């Protein structure tokens, strides 16, 4: 090809970039040529939006038919908007210079672009003009900068470290001053110390600095190393867990971020995506209603309904038209595989389901060749020419194609869309009651419904409209809205053919998982780009909210600031005045109201967020998802965001913990996430087992690390009082180092295997997670306990040692080794006492470490040049040494054991109660209500009627990043886009209820 390979950073705007098959697109390009004669090329956009299917991109009409040589010489101007992050919109124009005579403005859309980070597939080569490069690409603009995450626990440990640091400074200052005073009063008299009479002033600093050195071990450096080690082991346990392997795909769970496992145990809010996270995102065509006849109601599967099969076999005209719409009213690309089977590449799972279902019903979409579609029905091949495609937008909520039947030349408009976007536009006189009923019935079953419609167009009507459409397509300003307006002129007087119902099944175990986690005191928010009723429906079916008598939904809506404000205040008021009633109250908010609430009523909304355990936010954009996470985080809640698609990435990055489901929408979310799991239900295990254990283990490990450092440090401090406050170290430097690095860190590292309760017990009693959430195992007061213990143990070791080894035995090396052995013995017993379950590894580490201590010291004692030559042998021969050890252990551990036993038996925590029940096999005593702060409950307002007829239609709707702006514009048009109407009706019924009360 003669092209030169260059670095992506060297590409400038305006360069022509050539790509080969499977190349990654280096910047945003406007496509101007491909190897395909039709000017098509295929891209995989998974990295951009998470959708795994191939998308077609087409070269602009102006460049059509240019050959390879010509492309090198092409010259022209592209007018494009400023860089933005909307990956679904690109409103630009292209004008080519002579000799490329096409002087007209040629409109460019997103379909003419190759965006950065997409991959070129199934196309030999393509070339394009760079329009946005570097950080100005669509991807670059939408990329949030993920902040490094710090667990609540790490923050607490840092705080405690700070406190210890202050304590250390105080100790150093006090001892430093005492040392200087003692030096000036006593040490001067001690001729054998030979202090110089007059020293320079900085001599004053020597003693404090010596104490600083002595006390520097007070903050255990080893804690960082130990924590990193155990954290990576926590992560490994997640990776290894065979119960979290997705059986369908064999993909294990994975912890990308190894540093935040403890946070999993402290989660307070879970923000979840819906499609693909709670549901399988595997659409299956289940039922349909054609011309008032219901198919699939008996068997639950229309494809097996004999009535329908007979109708298809008999070529009933209604059914045939219905199937035709199913088969071709879409943007699906059929690809023939080598075996002859036809694979469909669809942008949305719904379309995929419809086309596949049509194929099963003998209406096979065979081929697409440029604008010519080929379908085969009962053996005969029918060809259609696609004249226009009126694409789906979330405002129009329908998509249409205009096709020409190649046999008889008739032009037909085929549409499919949400019921409220189709049914009102049925031709006057069509009876739509049966269809409305069908929609309602299907919606109650939690199925996603679509209405299919059809209208024959007259030749001149189409021609006239076609011009307007072309003109609208090339506007630069408000193009989307203009097109919508033009489309509206064609999409009316439908003959509604019927309703399809597609099932998006919940994933296995979703309701149980949500119920368990809610019992564990975790609040759930559902953030979805989907519409309100679908969201509510799914929420109901997965225990997210309770059905009516128990649960209650409060709606926040409104199109203007005032309305939103009023609605928000009403909801807040009802939430506030209701207190202890055991009712599940949830609020529902849509993206538009949310935008206003977040912008103008942030305080009120924040209060609402704190009051409400459950929320459903529908039609929210990715950035709003992230904003909600931010809001909860700003209230000091630990948030976990879980999602599966590219639209969840920002929320996942924003949350304290991001969990990605490696699902059908690609791996983008999973890659951005801290944890990736195969199924939603693994979340339960991730939090209750891995998160909880990690929290407990780190809580012990970190406090123990401080404890053991403090013990040795306190002994040093006490020793300084009997060594003339001169800063002598009782222990030699080798022992000190080995104490921190080896003797005390090995036993505690195996605490990563400790389990206070078995997994089964935790799963049955998820309430005990509250201990982790509230941080009851690591906080200043538990830390004070460990601090006290270290002080006590230091006193025990010190006092017993100096009295047992007094007078003729008071040799320095011996005494220091006695004190050190005393500490080591106590450590072993402390770890043993705090261990809940002993595996062979724990025994090995705890007792093996004690043996290793002696072996190591014997080795040192055998080296003549070492300072402690023969010391350990001498000590081990003395009965008094062993009696001293027994005394230290008994005096040090006795009170600790007694206190622990007393608490365990007579002031048991819920964990203790469960431990007793689990191990003694006894009945589990009532756990009582350990939910610490009962959330405010709803009382009076009668439930938002979730059976509103117009509102019950989960609808075909890919997740869109529609902004409220576009919504507003469609409103402003005055065109009958009245999908808000139903909601305002809801709010009025709501306010009526309010007044009734």
């Amino acid at each position, binding site marked *: 090809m003669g092209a030169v390979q260059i670095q992506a950073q060297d590409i400038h705007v305006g360069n022509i970039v050539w790509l080969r098959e499977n190349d990654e697109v280096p910047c945003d390009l406007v496509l101007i040529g491909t190897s395909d004669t039709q000017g098509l090329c295929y891209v995989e956009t998974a990295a951009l939006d998470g959708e795994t299917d191939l998308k077609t991109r087409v070269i602009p009409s102006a460049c059509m038919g240019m050959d390879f040589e010509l492309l090198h010489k092409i010259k022209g101007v592209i007018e494009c908007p400023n860089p933005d992050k909307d990956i679904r919109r690109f409103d630009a124009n292209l004008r080519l210079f002579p000799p490329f005579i096409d002087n007209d403005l040629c409109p460019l859309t997103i379909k003419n672009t190759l965006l950065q980070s997409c991959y070129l597939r199934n196309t030999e080569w393509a070339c394009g003009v760079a329009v946005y490069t570097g950080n100005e690409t669509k991807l670059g603009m939408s990329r949030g900068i993920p902040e490094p995450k710090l667990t609540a626990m790490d923050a607490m440990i840092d705080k405690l470290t700070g406190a210890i640091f202050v304590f250390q400074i105080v100790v150093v200052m006090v001892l430093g001053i005492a040392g200087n005073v003692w030096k000036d009063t006593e040490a001067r008299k001690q001729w054998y110390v030979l202090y110089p009479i007059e020293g320079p002033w900085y001599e004053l600093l020597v003693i404090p600095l010596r104490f600083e050195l002595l006390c520097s071990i007070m903050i255990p450096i080893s804690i960082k190393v130990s924590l990193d080690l155990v954290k990576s082991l926590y992560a490994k346990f997640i990776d290894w867990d065979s119960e979290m392997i997705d059986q369908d795909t064999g993909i294990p769970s994975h912890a990308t971020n190894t540093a935040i496992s403890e946070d999993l145990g402290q989660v307070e809010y879970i923000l979840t995506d819906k499609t693909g996270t709670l549901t399988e995102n595997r659409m299956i065509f289940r039922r349909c209603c054609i011309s008032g006849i219901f198919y699939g109601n008996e068997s639950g599967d229309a494809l097996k309904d004999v009535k329908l099969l007979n109708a298809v076999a008999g070529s009933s005209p209604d059914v045939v038209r219905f199937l035709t719409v199913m088969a071709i009213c879409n943007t699906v690309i059929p690809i023939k595989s080598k075996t002859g089977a036809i694979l469909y590449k669809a942008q949305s799972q719904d379309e995929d389901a419809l086309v596949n279902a049509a194929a099963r019903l003998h209406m096979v979409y065979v081929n697409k060749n440029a604008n010519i579609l080929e379908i085969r029905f009962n053996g005969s091949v029918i060809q259609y020419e696609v004249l226009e495609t009126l694409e789906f937008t979330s405002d129009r909520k329908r998509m249409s194609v205009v096709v020409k039947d190649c046999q008889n030349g008739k032009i037909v408009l085929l549409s499919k869309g949400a019921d409220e976007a189709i049914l009102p536009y049925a031709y006057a006189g069509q009876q739509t009651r049966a269809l409305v009923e069908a929609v309602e019935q299907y919606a109650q079953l939690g199925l996603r419904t679509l209405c299919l419609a059809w209208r024959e167009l007259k030749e001149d009507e189409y021609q006239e409209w076609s011009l307007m459409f072309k003109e609208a397509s090339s506007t630069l300003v408000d193009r989307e809205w203009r097109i919508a307006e033009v489309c509206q002129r064609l999409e009316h007087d439908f003959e509604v053919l019927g309703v399809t119902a597609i099932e998006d099944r919940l994933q296995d175990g979703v309701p149980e998982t949500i119920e368990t986690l809610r019992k564990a005191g975790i609040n759930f928010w559902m953030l979805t780009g989907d519409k309100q009723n679908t969201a509510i429906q799914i929420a109901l079916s997965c225990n997210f909210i309770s059905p009516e008598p128990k649960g209650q939904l409060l709606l926040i809506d409104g199109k203007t600031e005032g309305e939103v404000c009023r609605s928000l205040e009403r909801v807040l008021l009802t939430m506030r005045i209701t207190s202890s009633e055991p009712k599940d109250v949830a609020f529902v908010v849509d993206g538009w109201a949310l935008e206003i609430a977040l912008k103008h009523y942030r305080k009120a909304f924040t209060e609402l967020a704190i009051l409400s355990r459950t929320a459903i936010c529908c039609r929210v954009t990715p950035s709003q998802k992230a904003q909600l996470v931010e809001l909860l985080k700003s209230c000091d809640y630990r948030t976990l965001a879980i999602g599966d698609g590219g639209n969840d990435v920002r929320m996942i990055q924003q949350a304290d913990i991001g969990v990605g489901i490696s699902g059908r929408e690609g791996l983008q979310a999973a890659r951005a996430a801290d944890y990736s799991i195969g199924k939603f239900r693994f979340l339960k295990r991730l939090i209750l087992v891995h998160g909880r254990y990690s929290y407990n283990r780190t809580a012990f490990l970190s406090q123990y690390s401080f404890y053991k450092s403090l013990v040795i440090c306190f002994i040093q401090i006490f020793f300084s009082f009997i*060594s*003339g406050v001169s800063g002598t170290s009782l222990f030699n430097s080798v022992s000190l180092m080995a104490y921190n690095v080896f003797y005390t860190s090995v036993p505690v590292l195996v605490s990563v295997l400790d389990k206070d309760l078995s997994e089964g017990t935790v799963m049955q009693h998820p309430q005990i997670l509250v201990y982790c959430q509230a941080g009851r195992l690591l906080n200043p007061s538990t830390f004070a306990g460990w601090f006290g213990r270290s002080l006590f143990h230091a006193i025990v070791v010190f006092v017993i040692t*100096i009295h047992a080894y007094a007078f003729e035995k008071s040799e*320095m090396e011996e005494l220091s080794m006695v004190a050190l052995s005393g500490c080591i013995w106590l450590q072993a017993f402390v770890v043993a006492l705090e261990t809940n*379950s*002993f595996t062979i590894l724990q025994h090995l580490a705890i007792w093996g470490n004690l043996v290793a201590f002696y072996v190591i010291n014997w080795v040192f004692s055998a080296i003549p040049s070492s300072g402690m030559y023969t010391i350990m042998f001498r000590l081990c021969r003395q009965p008094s040494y062993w*009696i001293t050890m027994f005394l230290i252990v008994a005096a040090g551990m006795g009170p600790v054991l007694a206190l*622990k036993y007393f608490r365990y038996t007579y002031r048991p925590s819920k964990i203790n109660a469960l431990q007793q029940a689990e191990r003694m096999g006894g009945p589990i005593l009532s756990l009582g209500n350990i939910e610490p702060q009962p959330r405010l409950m709803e009382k009076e307002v009668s439930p938002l009627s979730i059976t509103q007829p117009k509102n019950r239609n989960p609808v075909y709707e890919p997740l869109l990043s529609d902004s409220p702006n576009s919504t507003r514009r469609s409103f402003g048009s005055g065109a009958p886009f009245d999908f808000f109407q139903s909601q305002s009706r809801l709010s009025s019924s709501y306010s009526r209820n309010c007044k009734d009360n």
Partner: protein
Amino acid sequence: MTDTDRVRHRDTKTAFYLFTQQKLPACKPVLTPAWVITIFLFTGFIFIPLGLVTLRASRSVIEIVERYDTECVPEPFRIDKVSYIQDDSIPKNCSLFLKVHKYMKAPIYIYYQLDNYYQNHRRYVKSRSDQQLLNGQKYQATSSCQPVEFNNARPIVPCGLIAWSLFNDTFTFIRERAELKVNRKNIAWKSDRDHKFGKNVYPSNFQNGTLIGGGKLNPRIPLSDQEDLIVWMRTSALPSFRKLYGRIEEDLDADDVVLVQLMNNYNTYSFGGKKKLVLSTSSWLGGKNDFFGLACVFVGSSSLILAIVFMLLHLKFQR
């Protein structure tokens, strides 16, 4: 599928698999009343007899402690003891009578005890050179010995504050006009004599300067045989300590009176330190030290009390 099943089946048996699944067999001890009470009872029943045995051992040790720092200063000098001790012209000899209360079986250890003497002071502890003690003047890097490192630009052997402040009171023991035989050999650790202090290292330039500290050393005796120095250089961790002076290898009978003739050379007066002479027998536990026995009895009885308290609590709140 069957293959993976088999693999999985085999895997479940390996310890590593169990480790990865955190399912290693574990024993989960419970703090049941029975266990805890048993532990405390057991501790009590171990420690009380142990305490009594050690107490008996300690009591079996006969000890004579005589403080002599004040008495050995003649009356006229007691107002200013420091000038007395620092004045070389005044003779420092002094006599003490020790009365033996109980039969003391040989060997009887002779200790000198210093109180309020900080051998563990940081400045003091560090001021020595183990390498020089072993290798003599060959070893030059003796900066740790400061401020007693050089004298007249020649290295001091042994250098450092510890050696410089060597204790130099001497004692002779006389019973009924006959001198008691005091064995002054083997009072230092054998390991020190063999491996820490050089056989070919002789004191040189020691206590030669303007600053005279404690005792002097015979420059013709190698350091490995200077046992008083070796004992002194094993610094004590506590401000009150006893160091071995020698052994009396004759039994002393009850009511024997031992005359101690001592040279009161060592200055503890400037910092108010006490000097004591100790004669002591020994037991399997060492010297006289009641702490072991008392502490064991205390711990043992506390354990018993706790056991009883917990037993009562258990009976009262039995569920």
